């Protein structure tokens, strides 16, 4: 199990992936948005919380598509399924590795980046905290989506169609935390809901992922 985590992290670092890229995508998005919608601070500031959360969502999504597909193609998924590791455990570890390589660095770095979008200062810690609490849900949901589409050769658009609607609650509560933080309102409720969703995903989705994988391996 630990070995799987280690292997996945190592692969992520070596295979043209790595911690940096999720961040880089996030940075590019934060640059493109002003280019697209116009540079006025009074236009950017109110949409900053939402855009930052959307960026996190898309960064997760982009790094997701080959989560299982690579293992399926080179035959290691077959071998993993016959190894004495429950597939549920493998799914958990995959999601964890995905989170460590995308969600975690995002949570760490998002706050400084958000200045590009003129996010008000008081919201910064809430942005970091909400990402820290919310991104695990994104990784776990994404692992499930990737398990569903592992057999498809060009699954990435279908994957996004399946996964993005599942991201809605996380996005809503996450962005709400930041928005309330920016306006100085209490954030306890959305934060608790966010944490609840994450916990639920971590507890239940590995079973769904493993079931989907087993069906796909048949």
């Amino acid at each position: 199990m630990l070995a799987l985590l280690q292997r996945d992290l190592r692969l992520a670092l070596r295979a043209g992936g790595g911690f940096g890229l999720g961040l880089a995508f996030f940075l590019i998005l934060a640059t493109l948005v002003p280019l697209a919608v116009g540079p006025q601070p009074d236009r950017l500031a109110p949409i900053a919380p939402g855009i930052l959360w959307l960026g996190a969502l898309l960064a997760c999504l982009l790094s997701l598509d080959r989560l299982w597909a690579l293992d399926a193609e080179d035959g290691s998924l077959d071998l993993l399924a016959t190894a004495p590791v429950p597939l549920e455990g493998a799914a958990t570890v995959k999601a964890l590795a995905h989170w460590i390589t995308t969600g975690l660095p995002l949570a760490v770095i998002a706050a400084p980046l958000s200045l590009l979008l003129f996010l008000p200062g008081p919201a910064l810690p809430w942005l970091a905290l909400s990402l820290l609490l919310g991104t695990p849900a994104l990784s776990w949901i994404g692992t499930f989506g990737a398990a569903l589409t592992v057999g498809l050769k060009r699954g990435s658009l279908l994957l996004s169609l399946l996964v993005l609607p599942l991201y809605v609650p996380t996005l809503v509560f996450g962005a709400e935390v930041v928005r309330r933080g920016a306006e100085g309102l209490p954030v306890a409720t959305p934060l608790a809901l966010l944490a609840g969703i994450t916990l639920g995903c971590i507890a239940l989705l590995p079973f769904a992922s493993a079931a989907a994988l087993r069906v796909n391996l048949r």
Partner: protein
Amino acid sequence: MEFEARSLTCRRGEATVLEGVAFRVRAGEALILRGPNGAGKTTLLRTLAGLTPAVAGEVTAPPEAMAYGAHADGLKAQLTVAENLAFWAAAFGTGAEALARAEAAFDLAPLRARRAADLSAGQKRRAALARLVLTGRPVWLLDEPTVSLDAGNTARFAAAVRTHLAAGGSALIATHIDLGLPETRVLDVARFAPTGRQAAGSDPFAEAVE
């Protein structure tokens, strides 16, 4: 390890490929699967490995006793040979000793530090076969193991199988060539081609619906 399969029906995708497969493998014995291309050798091995559930019939050994070596190598191109093997050793909970044995059996020491992507086809194959030694499992299921191996490495592989058998293990090997293993029996998979009529049983749509 001794085990037996009784009237096994196997499917691949949506097709019933084998019916009524029955055989017995004794400890220390290798059973060679023969059959023309498309006969169902891969299908049978996947079923025994527990990847595809059998439609009917039973196997007396659990999937946990089986080590499956597939057509695909299952190597991570970005990892070195040593890293690849260490991962599988950890996944199967066998230690450094098994690792050393596996490396020795397939002479992998010179390749240890190479990325799997930089290996030739036969070198990849050797690394993939070494994994079997690592698993420490009693039954080896091998699907055309000697593909791309030269004569020297084929002999190495045969030696590894012999060692495994001598230690009381058993093996099922699908192959088209002669491996030079002593004391093997041959199972012709083509014998179990489905008769068509019985295949209907598993799929309610195989008969007319109206």
